[in-house]
């Protein structure tokens, strides 16, 4: 399973990741505020993630890490 990890405390809720995810599985968590006062991004359905890293590529704060499912060799 591919997956991403967002460092919520460092996320600024800019929504750029939201805008590029081909799977549309990222949203800003309207109900959470991190300590800097932002609504961080979160994944709604991690199982849909394809590990394309688009989100991480565009994240201006470099707070996303991505793991991609690979075939066992």
């Amino acid at each position, binding site marked *: *399973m*591919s*997956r991403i990890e967002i460092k919520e405390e*460092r996320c*600024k*809720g*800019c*929504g*750029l990741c*939201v*805008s*590029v995810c081909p799977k549309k599985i990222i949203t800003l968590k309207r109900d959470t505020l991190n300590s800097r006062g*932002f609504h961080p991004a979160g994944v709604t359905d991690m199982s849909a993630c394809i*590990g394309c*890293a*688009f989100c*991480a*590529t*565009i*994240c*201006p*704060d*470099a*707070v*996303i*890490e*991505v*793991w*991609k*499912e*690979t*075939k*066992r060799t």
Partner: protein
Amino acid sequence: MMEEKVFTRTPGLTDKPFHYCPGCTHGIIHRLIAETMCEMGILETSIGVSPVGCTYNNYEYFACDMVQAAHGRAPAVATGIKRVHPNHTVFTYQGDGDLAAIGTAEIVHAAARGEKISTFFVNNAIYGMTSGQMAPTTLIGQVTTTSPFGRSADAQGYPINVSEMLATLQGAVYIERVSVTGVKQIRQAKKAIRKAFYVQQAGLGFSMVEILSTCPTNWGQDPVSALQWVDEAMMKQYPLGVFRGSEIEVKPEWK
């Protein structure tokens, strides 16, 4: 099945969180430069020069040796550094106020001298740091705090196309304009950064990558529409492309 980490924060960046506004693309550009240094194995032999602008303190973010320069003077500072360490990779990171206004003479002459440095010119068509004044690259009609009725050619003059201007100089061997408005563009931007470093290491002369960037805060736009504004409005005035050095081939292993 296994998972492989395909994206992680580059060690070319320190761990310090950026102080930029949400969605500001300065952060993307920082990451690309940092990643490139790491991938090329030059982090420890690179010396960067920080500008005066929103990224005045990017010396806290890049994990290489860094010098903070006076407003506009980064190319002169970089010249001083490069002449002392000719085998190191020296780069400047400059905004459009820094490079295209107060620093015009310094960038033109670093380019004319063919100074073996690389400049990353972040054009966001505004003075971000000082709260949204007109920059030399502000578009005609654009409202800023110093052009409150929109920039008019008659009162405030025309935008400067820096890449085109510097491309008239023989010492400027590689000049490309890129953007970071999408994943594809970001990848192209990284290629350009890599090529600039390559040109420097090969001793060919001065290299510059102009990167169209956003300032959601001072444009008064949300981060996503800011990206669109780059694509739709800015690119009309500032078309992407290679203005010098399209013939230069980067070493295959660095492509």
